[in-house]
């Protein structure tokens, strides 16, 4: 989708500018504006990127999951010259973070923060100093990340929860963000983290961290973190009685109600809701790094905004943040997809290009490479994008990267706003709940066409608001490069409402204001054995999972027309479903599942297609579901897939239907 050649994109631009712009049908591609190039790795180097930083001389320092640190000279490949890789250190324990300061490279290992020094100047570390160490239980999910170094030299690290069928804080300070001085003095800063793989400063130096969907986490998000915050997952509260804890909140103070976080938060002192939600599968599936655009325009029109990586969908998202009533909130936008592996780390090169470090081991990603290092450059061309979305007392103010076409921009039907949220509970993930359309009542476009203010009825405080603007056009007739945005409305500002005349499209029909949504029934999911099967099923097949987005059964044979009981045991630590689809249709079904958008979770990510024959529900980790069906009479190689967005590429197997 994002892989069209630059030549084609440029050709389209020429056409669009020269000829009738409205008639131009070739859509722009992300690659027209942001170009990905790949750093070739020396053979044998397993560069599963865990951490990255750029040294003052422009060298790129990379730590890996296998515990090596590499120094890469000429990472921008200036002059077409190959980058040079020098191994600086080795033997670290899953080094998932790296930062440079004052001649030393700091890296966080599972059990400690380490300072690496090259004292004899041979380009290789000869001192591995333990700055601060913490206990571990020995669980694989006990990852440790960082450091993020404050201007005063204080280092911030985060400690992942373990996984034992749920997120568990099995040793002290798991689920916490810690601050550590260069002398090794550690102070616990905040808790409530589940899987805080990425954190960074915004443009003003405030700390934000990214969270991954799981138990208590309905969807990924980024949250502003200050000392004493509780940001959502109760497990880390286990340690609030320990000396040094800035919180006194206890696990039992967090009720497991299934209500949205916005409703529960007032009763939980210190609970800080996300600044910006990244709706699951619509924006990303596994939040990773956070990188503020400090390039002052060198990387394009988004200076001061924040980029957020996504490991599972191999993409980088964009977030605009603002502070309303003292609280951070803002909008998330798609930005660039198509990276070769799972995006874990991002860092600015000295030339304002973004280095993207990747790994997909154990969790799989849309990009099929197991690991890699890529570079993202702005081509200098201006995409047509929503640049910012700011909350207003009665709606939103949008700014654009290019002037909008007055006709579509003043048409109320160009704007669709839908509010929704997630459940806050111990269950893994959440469906989209309380989804309601908010009616757009008016619009006012600025004289220069660079912004538009919309008045919206039915804004809900604490809710995510999807803004969909598919039919909006630029003055040159281009559609938006990304037509959707997700604004998290923690606070509604006060101030005057806008004055407008109802647009020509008038008010939307009443049905749209309060949609009556039929309960979803899915006829292809039969979870009780048909009464007519008096002798039971002819065969029972049980399928589980393997780490890395795979079923544990690659293929099985079954007789045409026989009665099959198919048991799907989701023994993984993320959500999956299982769909049996017609031969050769797995890719299409997978794509259509992604296209379900906000409807996806409710429909178990099962698109309504003839190609889909049978399916389970979307199963949380540890859940088993049996479905019953009569095997098709037509012999052939049917496919079973997980259609959860991003999984269908690897998570599939073959049901061979054979003649009896």
């Amino acid at each position, binding site marked *: 989708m994002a892989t069209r050649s630059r030549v084609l994109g440029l050709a389209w631009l020429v056409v669009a500018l020269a000829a009738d712009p409205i008639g131009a049908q070739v859509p722009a591609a992300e690659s027209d504006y942001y170009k990905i190039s790949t750093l070739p790795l020396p053979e044998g180097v397993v560069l599963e990127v865990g951490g990255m930083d750029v040294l003052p001389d422009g060298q790129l320092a990379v730590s890996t999951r296998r515990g090596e640190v590499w120094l890469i000279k000429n990472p921008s490949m200036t002059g077409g010259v190959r980058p040079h890789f020098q191994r600086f250190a080795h033997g670290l324990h899953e080094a998932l973070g790296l930062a440079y300061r004052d001649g030393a490279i700091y890296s966080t290992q599972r059990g400690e923060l380490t300072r690496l020094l090259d004292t004899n100047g041979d380009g290789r570390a000869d001192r*591995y100093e333990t700055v601060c160490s913490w206990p571990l239980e020995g669980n694989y999910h006990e990852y440790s990340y960082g450091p993020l170094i404050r201007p005063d030299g204080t280092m911030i690290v985060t400690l992942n929860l373990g996984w034992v069928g749920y997120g568990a804080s099995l040793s002290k300070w798991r689920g916490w963000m810690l601050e550590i001085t260069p002398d090794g003095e550690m102070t616990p800063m905040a808790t409530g983290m589940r899987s805080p793989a990425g954190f960074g400063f915004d443009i003003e130096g405030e700390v934000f961290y990214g969270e991954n969907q799981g138990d208590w986490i309905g969807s990924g998000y980024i949250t502003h973190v200050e000392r004493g915050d509780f940001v959502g997952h109760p497990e880390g509260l286990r340690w609030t009685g320990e000396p040094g804890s800035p919180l006194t909140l206890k696990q039992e103070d967090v009720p497991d109600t299934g209500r949205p976080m916005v409703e529960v938060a007032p009763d939980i002192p210190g609970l800080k809701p996300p600044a910006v939600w990244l709706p699951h599968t619509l924006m990303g599936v596994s939040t990773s790094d956070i990188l503020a655009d400090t390039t002052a325009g060198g990387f394009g029109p988004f200076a001061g905004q924040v980029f957020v990586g996504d490991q599972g969908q191999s993409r980088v998202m964009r977030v605009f943040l603002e502070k309303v009533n003292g609280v951070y909130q803002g909008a998330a936008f798609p930005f660039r997809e198509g990276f070769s592996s799972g995006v874990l780390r991002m860092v600015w090169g000295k030339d304002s290009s973004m280095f993207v470090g990747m790994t997909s081991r154990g969790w799989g990603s849309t990009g099929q490479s197991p690991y890699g290092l890529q570079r993202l450059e702005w081509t200098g061309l201006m995409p047509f994008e929503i640049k910012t979305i700011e909350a207003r007392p009665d709606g939103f103010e949008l700014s654009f990267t290019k002037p909008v076409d007055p006709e579509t921009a003043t048409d109320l039907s160009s704007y669709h706003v839908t509010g929704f949220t997630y459940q806050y509970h111990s269950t893994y993930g959440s469906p989209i709940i309380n989804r309601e359309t908010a009616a757009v009542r008016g619009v006012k476009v600025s004289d220069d066409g660079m912004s538009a203010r919309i008045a919206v009825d039915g804004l809900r405080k604490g809710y995510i608001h999807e803004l969909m603007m598919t039919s909006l056009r630029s003055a040159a007739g281009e559609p938006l490069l990304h037509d959707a945005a997700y604004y998290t409305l923690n606070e509604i500002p006060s101030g005057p409402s806008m004055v407008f005349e109802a647009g020509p499209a008038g008010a939307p029909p009443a049905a749209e204001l309060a949609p009556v949504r039929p309960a979803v029934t899915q006829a292809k999911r039969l979870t009780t054995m048909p009464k007519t099967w008096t002798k039971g099923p002819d065969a029972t097949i049980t399928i589980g999972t393997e780490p890395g987005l795979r079923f544990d059964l690659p293929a099985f044979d079954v007789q045409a027309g026989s009665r099959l009981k198919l048991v799907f045991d989701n023994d993984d630590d993320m959500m999956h479903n299982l769909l049996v689809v017609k031969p050769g249709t797995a890719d299409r079904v997978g794509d259509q599942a992604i296209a379900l958008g906000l409807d996806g979770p409710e429909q178990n990510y099962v698109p309504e297609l003839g190609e889909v024959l049978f399916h389970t529900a979307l199963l949380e980790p540890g859940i088993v579901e049996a479905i019953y069906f009569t095997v098709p009479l037509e012999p052939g190689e049917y496919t079973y897939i997980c259609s959860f967005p991003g999984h269908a590429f690897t998570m599939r197997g073959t049901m061979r239907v054979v003649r009896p």
Partner: protein
Amino acid sequence: MKLRSGCLLLGLLMLGPIAAAAQSPEAPLSSLFLGNMDAFRPTAGNWHIVGGVAADLNTTHEIRTSEGTGILVNIPSEAARDNLFFDWEHGDIQLEFEFMMPKESNSGIYLQGRYEIQMLDSWGKQRPSFSDVGGIYQRWDSERPEGRQGYQGHAPRMNTARAPGLWQRFQIRFQAPRFDDAGRKTANARMVEVKHNGVVIHQNVELTGPTRGSSFSDERPTGPLMIQGDHGPVAIRNIRYALRLPAPDADPAPPRVGAILVEPAGEPVLIRAFMNHGDRKKTHTIAVGNSRGVHYSMDQRQGSLMHIWKGGFIETTDMWHSRGQHQLAKPIGSVITLDGEPTVARLASASAPWPDTMGVDYTFDGYELDAEGHPSFLYRLGDVTVSDRVLPESGGKRLFRELTLRGDSDLQDYWVRVASGTSIKTLGDGGFGIDDDSYHVMLHHMGDAEAVVRSVDGGSDLLVPLSFADGEAAVRYTLVW
């Protein structure tokens, strides 16, 4: 003959369902009585039953014995150097025993008197061949051209030999050749699995015929075990066996994941990982391997040695493949497991128990690498700073450990524990045998400090008191195994 077939058939019918229900049940092993020589055919007198044996690192072919029972020993002479045949025959067999060899000695165990697994002092050999300990010896055909008479030998996967004078262990699963009613061979004999000192050195090795030195030129369904007696002294104990093999898994899944192995080629390699120490998972460990093939691991939380081993270095499949559910790094050589408890401690009295963990006054500061890449571990215990390094010695046969400790001259009551075990035997010249000669420690000269062997709670400690009179103390010793 007919009756016997019938019995076998009945046995199979009865065993079938059980074998299918429980995959690969371990056959219970019987111990061979070594109170006398009744289990063996008579020899010229070179084989005896004794109560104790000892051999040292430097004396060729000398094994010293003491009276008693439980150990079978061969001390050959010109006049008496018979091979030893067991007094019964076997087909399929599981066989385990321990053996000790003096320097440069040579023997071998012949399954069915025909198929030899070599026993040799191969201590420290970098690249073992079929003729080193654990090797399946070559076959021999004198009709073949000069230089090619020997064929089909199988070197062990790695050299897991222990030093002369230490007890070693073989665990063998041998499948006898199969024959049809006409006596034609239908399946070759097979070393299903051979372990040496706990390490798998052969799996599913097919034997096309008797190896060199076989007592028989033919192949048969059964034959007697034989231990070679004409090449040098050897002691053997704890012989255990079962005359059947565990039932193979009826429908084994093919392996899907290749091993991820780390082998040092040039500089030493460090791996920080979770490692099992006994049945406990240690979370802050550092394994250090070197190209000499002699490796160790540290517990950085205790300032202690956990394991020393030879052979391969580390398998990291369980860390580095997919999510690595257990996250364990596993030594792939033959491992000596040490106590894993603090090396340095302050004791209230010379008889106070040794602490099993470091207290709050312990801090691990990291390590520095020397010019060759060997780490010195740096830690603090109260007012004492410690630099702790371990280096390969004698071309990879042993490890040398040096602790350099610094503190004020008036510090007292600090000790280094060099070794602990169920037994510590004084060997003289600074040598000590730990845990019934599992490994030896050679203490280097320490000036006036006197090492102390003490018994505490049924175990023994080898302690060195520290004096900081010069502001610095050092303890140096060599681990031999």
